[in-house]
């Protein structure tokens, strides 16, 4: 759409040298690309320019000669002359810094930011060296706790407006703002309210001074003592890129990396502070086996021997089909591959289900063309028919918010208002089941969606992207499979993303850790899923391996799950204590994040490396080693025991990973990993180390190696082979058919309300429970009810009500009045304090509850 008026580039003279700049680019950006660093505080490339700190003043030519102008605010123009190093500029920089330091306490020796502080660095590089200020500095009470996670030392603040801009523009959580005026200006929350943003940690990362600090890191380390390794967050399947910083074998901090294709430097607080749990005493650190009724610490050898005996006994007594593996979505790709080989080849059972949430099934995920995140953000139209994005894939919400500002059109399909609703051009208030049924056989819902999609993307859906996920955790997964499947049929050119949110669930699908699939997206005969396995385990003898899951917390039908765990022989392989460990016969302690190397796969299919920065706590071992030891114990060919070797085997044997090498994934050439299978568009070519913070020189440079200092062979070896190769090497299976009883889903039931179950970011997980500060933020379970319904049973907002499920189960839970609820439904928000999942019966099309007074 470029017309004659916008030239491809403009020319400016920077300190006497002519350089080329992009039209509309800011001087500070053009200069930086040309290698000239202009000092700055308030400028941040991921936020709107405000030009408030004046640190970036440079001389710019104009009709009346040269004048000082903020280079972060002024776009380049043809023929512009810019001087960044004159005496005048130097004097301006001196002056700005002297003013900033007037009220700055200079408590660097006790300030967390000391050593990585742009104010410190830039004062040294550009400052006056001496202060003429002899008066009293201002004093504030310090620090004040603006949330459980973030502390504020107001006298250190230089009013750069970064945190407040972030909260308002990026996170849409303007819970902090400037208060007061002049030298009384302070960052403030509303009186007696907290800065309860899911993304508050980012303000700490971007604050150019030590005004905002994070409680979990405060006074823990000095930046110059920290080592760092690049890694990927595994708290959800978005897979944000981050640097893991550590000191003396202990993880001290996570810092978001500015990856264009994934998280543009942001992290959510759940991901950022999840490391808190790594050192907790709720970690499982000893192998244990049950002797009579007591669990006793034993050696690995004894524990593995016990597991081996169980496998042999069950195989000979009840057949390999009596052995099942649940979970694994939190494991590395190498661990999953090793366990799948153990289960499906060595033991010979097909019972393996990592998708414990019953999200969109692998058969649809593989059969639909997958979009990348960038494709979704640049789509002609994005249809979001998913669980609340901010709760499930938090940073994706930030990316969508940014994309909407740049013109992305979002059509939301959701019965309930979600965080996406204010961003969406249109919200279609339909359930997934109703929409799927209507798309299949015609109806108003389908017509409205078609009108919205076709208007931007045409009948074939070219350029449209669908984000599909489980919006109601009471629904069976077939509902969502069916929705994605009919959409793909109707819009064959559209691409898809899925919001199944467990860390490596897409890696688990790719590696055959789900029913009906083998490693490499190879189809196998259908087999039981997690719910069916549990139902069987309740009345047949079974050996259950729980791979980092707690079925009591994650599966419906709690009574049935309890019966199954009591009846079955349970082997728990996990990093944290959970309610299932009480039922274990054997516990094998699993290395946690940062304690093992490997790769992980995000929701786009992007495979990235995990940085190992320390050794496993206690006796814990990495997932792939545990699998290898069990395999050896039962006499199977002993698997490989190094992640490099396992990955090499994967890329050698599975077409899906062809052309991807473990070393490439950690090189500067592919800093954001690679999307598998490799296709024409799969690659993002990196450009060397990226700055963690764009603000200062030297500043923090993102690490370019993962794992303790190890050079990468491919680094100098020229472009990796085959990465650019033609069409994807894995062909998609046919779109599966699902039978959904649409009538059963939406038929009202007399005297009862349909239950919609949703989750929140701080959901009670074993890892959250083990994190001292995050655990205080764990969401409470609640049920949201129409005010009239509440009134009719004589209950008040905030009081307890009794929910009675279809099969008579009763749950007491706090009720909240919600005017925005559609008719005939209640919204149950999962959390601690009440287990709402037990109201759901596996296999039923819809769950209805009676709301009664307590």
């Amino acid at each position: 759409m470029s017309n004659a008026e916008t030239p491809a580039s403009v020319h400016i003279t920077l300190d006497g040298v002519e350089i080329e700049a992009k039209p509309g680019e800011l001087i500070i950006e053009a200069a930086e690309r040309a290698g000239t660093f202009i000092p700055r505080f308030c400028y941040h490339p991921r936020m709107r320019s405000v030009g408030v700190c004046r640190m970036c003043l440079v001389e710019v030519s104009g009709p009346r000669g040269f004048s000082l102008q903020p280079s972060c605010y002024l776009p380049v123009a043809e023929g512009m002359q810019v001087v960044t190093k004159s005496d005048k500029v130097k004097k301006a920089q001196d002056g700005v810094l002297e003013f900033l330091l007037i009220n700055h306490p200079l408590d660097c020796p006790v300030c967390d930011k000391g050593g990585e502080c742009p104010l410190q660095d830039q004062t040294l590089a550009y400052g006056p060296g001496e202060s003429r200020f002899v008066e009293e500095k201002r004093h504030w009470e310090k620090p004040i706790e603006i949330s459980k996670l973030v502390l504020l030392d107001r006298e250190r603040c230089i009013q750069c407006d970064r945190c407040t801009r972030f909260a308002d523009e990026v996170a849409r959580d303007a819970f902090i703002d400037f208060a007061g005026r002049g030298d009384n200006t302070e960052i403030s929350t509303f009186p007696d309210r907290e800065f309860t943003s899911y993304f508050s940690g980012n303000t700490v990362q971007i604050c150019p001074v030590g005004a905002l600090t994070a409680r979990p890191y405060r006074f823990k380390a000095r930046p110059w003592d920290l080592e760092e390794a690049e890694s990927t967050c595994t708290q959800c399947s978005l897979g944000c890129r981050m640097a893991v910083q550590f000191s003396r074998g202990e993880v001290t901090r996570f810092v978001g990396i500015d990856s264009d294709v994934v998280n543009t430097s942001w992290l959510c607080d759940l991901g950022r502070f999840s490391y808190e749990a790594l050192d907790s005493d709720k970690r499982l650190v000893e192998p244990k086996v049950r002797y009579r009724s007591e669990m006793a610490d034993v050696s690995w050898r004894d524990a593995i021997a016990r597991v081996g005996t169980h496998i042999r006994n069950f195989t000979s007594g009840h057949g390999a089909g009596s052995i099942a593996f649940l979970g694994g979505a939190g494991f590395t790709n190498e661990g999953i591959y090793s366990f799948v080989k153990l289960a499906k080849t060595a033991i010979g059972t097909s019972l393996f289900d990592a998708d414990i949430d019953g999200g969109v099934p692998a058969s649809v995920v593989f059969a639909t063309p997958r979009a990348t995140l960038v494709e979704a953000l640049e789509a002609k139209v994005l249809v979001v028919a998913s669980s609340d994005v901010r709760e499930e894939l938090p940073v994706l919400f930030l990316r969508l918010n940014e994309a909407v500002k740049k013109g992305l059109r979002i059509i939301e399909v959701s019965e309930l208002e979600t965080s996406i609703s204010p961003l969406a051009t249109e919200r279609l208030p339909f359930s997934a089941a109703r929409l799927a049924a209507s798309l299949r056989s015609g109806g108003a819902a389908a017509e409205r969606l078609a009108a919205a999609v076709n208007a931007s993307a045409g009948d074939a859906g070219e350029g449209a992207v669908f984000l599909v996920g489980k919006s109601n955790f009471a629904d069976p997964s077939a509902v969502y499979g069916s929705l994605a499947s009919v959409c793909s049929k109707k819009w064959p050119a559209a691409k898809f993303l899925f919001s199944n949110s467990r860390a490596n669930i897409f890696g688990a699908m790719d590696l055959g850790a789900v029913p009906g699939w083998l490693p490499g997206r190879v189809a196998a005969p259908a087999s039981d899923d997690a719910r069916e396995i549990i139902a069987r385990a309740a009345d047949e003898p079974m050996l259950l391996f729980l791979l980092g899951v707690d079925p009591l917390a994650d599966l419906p039908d709690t009574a049935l799950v309890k019966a199954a765990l009591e009846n079955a022989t349970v082997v728990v392989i996990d990093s944290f204590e959970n309610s299932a460990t009480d039922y274990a016969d054997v516990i094998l302690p699993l290395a946690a994040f940062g304690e093992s190397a490997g790769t992980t796969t995000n929701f786009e299919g992007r495979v990235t490396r995990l940085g190992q920065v320390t050794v496993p706590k206690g006796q814990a071992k990495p997932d792939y080693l545990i699998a290898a030891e069990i395999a050896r114990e039962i006499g199977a060919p002993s698997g490989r025991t190094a992640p490099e070797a396992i990955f090499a085997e994967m890329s050698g044997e599975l077409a899906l990973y062809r052309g991807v090498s473990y070393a490439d994934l950690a090189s500067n050439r592919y800093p954001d990993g690679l999307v598998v299978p490799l296709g024409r568009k799969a690659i993002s070519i990196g450009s060397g180390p990226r700055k963690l913070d764009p603000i200062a020189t030297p500043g923090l440079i993102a690490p370019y190696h993962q794992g303790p200092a190890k050079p990468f062979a491919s680094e100098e070896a020229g472009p990796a082979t085959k990465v650019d190769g033609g069409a994807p090497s894995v062909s998609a299976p046919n779109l599966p058919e699902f039978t959904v009883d649409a009538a059963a889903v939406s038929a009202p039931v007399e005297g009862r309300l349909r239950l919609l179950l949703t989750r929140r970011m701080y959901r009670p997980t074993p890892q959250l429970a083990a994190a001292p500060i995050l655990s205080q933020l764990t969401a409470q379970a609640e049920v949201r009810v129409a005010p009239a319904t509440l009134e009719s049973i004589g209950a008040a907002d905030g009081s307890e009500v009794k929910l009675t499920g279809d099969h008579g189960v009763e749950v007491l839970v706090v009720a909240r009045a919600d005017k925005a609820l559609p008719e005939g439904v209640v919204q149950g928000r999962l959390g601690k304090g009440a287990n709402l999942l037990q109201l759901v019966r596996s296999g039923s099309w819809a769950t209805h509850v009676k709301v009664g007074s307590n």
Partner: protein
Amino acid sequence: MGAFSPEMRERAENLLTLYPKRRSALIPLCHLAQEQAGHLTSPLMEEIAELTGVTPAEVYGTASFYDMLHTEQVGKFLVGVCTNVACLLQGGGELLEHAEASLGVAAGGTTEDEMFTLEEVECVAHCDKAPAVQVNYRFFGPLTGESFDDLIAKLRAGEYDGVVPPHGTLTRVTRENGIEVPLDEVLAERKEMDRAKAERKAAAEAAKEGN
């Protein structure tokens, strides 16, 4: 349930209709809130946030910027003693000291009976009557210690009730018959503006296509 009284809520909603963007009504609504409660209570700021579609923190941030908006309790009478040049030369400093002693609060403080809040203010443009004092933005001067005490006594006794309304009262916008919002006119004008804008846009696009 709301923090605004029904009458104030109605006035607030009327005010909102005057602005093309809801958040533009923020400051006028803060004045309304002060008229009702004398200062901006937290529940009132929360209700303003809800009405204008911003967060309470943003309301607080804005309100705390302005000296005439008070986020903390103030007395019925806000007494400002000027200590700027003209008044200073005429004994404004001493007057302030006297006022502090006689009211028993330091500048910035509120008396226990919540009748008076004392402030030190910059020039209030009453220099010809220096040293000057303003009470709820009504001016008195020149004052001595004695006449200051006399003024305070009269205010306390209600003798000035007709002249100095309680803090927050918006005498400029309260008319006998309430505020008249010429809603029809405003809407007609806005419609016309929208139409003109659309026309300009169409013209610009036509020009572009012509290129």
